[in-house]
């Protein structure tokens, strides 16, 4: 078990009432598998991902990474060394080139990465489908699909085992969506990563190794 959520509770205080987004949610994830968390808008799936990626903290419950509470690891350190995050709107730094965007987390992480970081970054981009001449372009000169590939390369740059993605294909057309999903499957099945994707797409959920459905704050297996 690489990641486990135990009895997570997350709510908004509305006067004296609590509006639960997640209620006693527990779930676990293994390496080498591609997971999806399916849900309607406002179902709490992004909140769950933000808790799993330590961008937010639950009101109660815990998230364990390799059986260690991420609170003990330290949220910042956990994000720096243990996970890669991919966002729907790519969230790349527009003043940097594609390769420079990939280099950023390499300078932040404390993980062991090869010294020649630039070569590693170019190779990663190449693996994801960004050729050399595009790798040297500012990211806002790339298409949406290309930008999301750069974001995936950035998530992989620190050699982490856990990839978390929030609606990664939300801004892409169908062809591009499939290409991105194929990359995730490849990362899970060929490279042993644990890939967790939050989505509202049934098609993507059907392609995952295991899918969960989040409704009214309760997580259940998707069938």
């Amino acid at each position, binding site marked *: 078990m690489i990641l486990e959520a135990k009895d997570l509770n997350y709510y908004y205080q509305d006067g004296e009432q609590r509006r639960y987004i997640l209620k006693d949610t527990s779930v676990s994830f293994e390496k080498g598998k591609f997971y999806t968390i399916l849900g309607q808008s406002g179902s709490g799936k*992004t909140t769950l*991902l*933000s808790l799993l*990626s330590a*961008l*937010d903290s639950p009101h109660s419950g815990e998230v364990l990474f390799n059986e260690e509470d991420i609170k003990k690891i330290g949220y*910042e*350190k*956990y*994000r*720096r*060394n243990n996970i890669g*995050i991919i*966002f729907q*709107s790519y*969230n*790349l*730094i*527009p*003043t*940097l080139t594609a390769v*420079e965007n990939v*280099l*950023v*987390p*390499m*300078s*932040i*992480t404390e993980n062991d990465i090869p010294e020649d970081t630039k070569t590693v970054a170019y190779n990663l981009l190449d693996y994801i489908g960004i050729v050399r001449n595009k790798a040297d372009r500012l990211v806002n000169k790339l298409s949406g699909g290309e930008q999301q590939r750069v974001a995936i390369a950035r998530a992989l740059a620190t050699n982490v085992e856990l990839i978390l993605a*929030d609606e990664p294909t939300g801004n892409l057309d169908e062809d591009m969506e499939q290409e991105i999903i194929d990359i995730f499957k490849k990362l899970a099945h060929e490279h042993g990563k644990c890939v967790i994707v939050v989505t509202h797409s049934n098609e993507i959920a059907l392609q995952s190794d295991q899918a969960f459905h989040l409704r009214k704050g309760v997580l259940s297996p998707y069938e």
Partner: protein
Amino acid sequence: MNFIKRAFLGITRKKGKSLILLAVIFILGNLISGAISIQQATGNVESTIKERLGTAATVDMDYEAWDKMSEEELETFEPEMLDIDLIKQIGDLSYVKYYDYNMTTWVGSESIEPYEDADLGEGFFSGDNMPFRLKGINYAPVIDFEEGKAKLVDGRVFTEEEIDNGASVTVISQKLASENNLEVGDTFTLLNAVYDYPEDSEEEELIGSRDVVLEVIGLFDPQSAKEESDDKNEDSDMFLMEDIEYQNAMYVPNAIVSAEDNFTMEVYAENDPEFAEMMEDESFEYYEPIYYLNKPEDIEAFREEVLPLLPELYTVISASDQYERISGPMESMSKLAKYVLMVAVAATILITGLVVLLFLRDRKRELGIYLSLGEKRSKVIGQILIEVMVVAIVGITLSLFSGNLLAGQVSDTIMKSNDNESEYFEGVYYENLESNLTTEDVLDSYEVELNSSYVLGFYGIGLLTILISTIIPLIYIVRLNPKKILM
């Protein structure tokens, strides 16, 4: 791609914003730089002028305080004389390089003629029975020679024995000597004539006299009066008169002057019983002390230590006091520069702070990305600080030169507008303390220059101001929540 490299890329790849920040810092930097330049220049003038005014100080009655006393106070107030022990006690203070105390009297002569200057015409001393000034001294090497006011050109100065014993020896000016064919080793005779001025007569009446025979042991040549009279054509008559007076002065031991004063008083007492009764048990010895300090900056400390030792209504008067009289335009410029500096620093903090805050809001997403990747907040803050400070260093360096030029132009204009203000001196003249420096000299010595203290001062104040104006908006980064920005 560490935070330092990211900072430099941030500057070069966001040229527009960097240029806006540079322009803001440059404009405000000019104000700060100009104000510092003017402050430094006025500060330099003060130290230069005070250096030129010298380190001399004396102790005397505070006539301003005296004038302010009421009639009742004046009736009961009995001023004390400065006694020699107190003069010596002050002279022993660590700030004092050397000191002297002098008595002065005027005498005439039937055997020698006073020196006169052809430029002032003959007969300058006609009708003056006492054209020679005997300047009594206690400091054997003669303080005026040590201070460069005059130069010993022949013979020697006094010995301690001659001073202590009141030997009949003198050092006179070279011109007076050549006027009367006197050389070192010669003796000449002065006449201490005592005159009375009866109320019923316009003529003065000689009531007693005696000869004063002195041996010439040295010849001096006045230095300062000569230099200044060359410089100041418009005041040349005044300087010539000062020079003539000095050429006719004779340095003698204090005891000689004291003896002649006593003789004068005795003659008066013999001729006027009322005066004799009034002056019974009174001392005729009145000394003017003169202290030369080690450094001009010592004057305030010296004043602080001396004031408690002095009798009531006495005060310390220093050569540098004259600065306050002649430094009017400089003072107003210094004040103006101080206010400009304060306003400029406040404006820089406010305006640069707002500009940085606006830029940070614009880069909220970028900062959120760094935080989501696990970057430490301190390094994100470091990146922004480097970006601002690098631009600030460029802006400050540019304004270092332009502000300095600007300060030169502005201060020229201010000084020209103040140049017409003249100062009239009303007060007591102290021979050893007065210099011929004027407001014009103060203005002439004003120079806005690019020196190391200005450069360091400006970089220090400029960078500190920018640092403060950046740190305040950086609180924004500390409060950033990456989830809210990115998801």
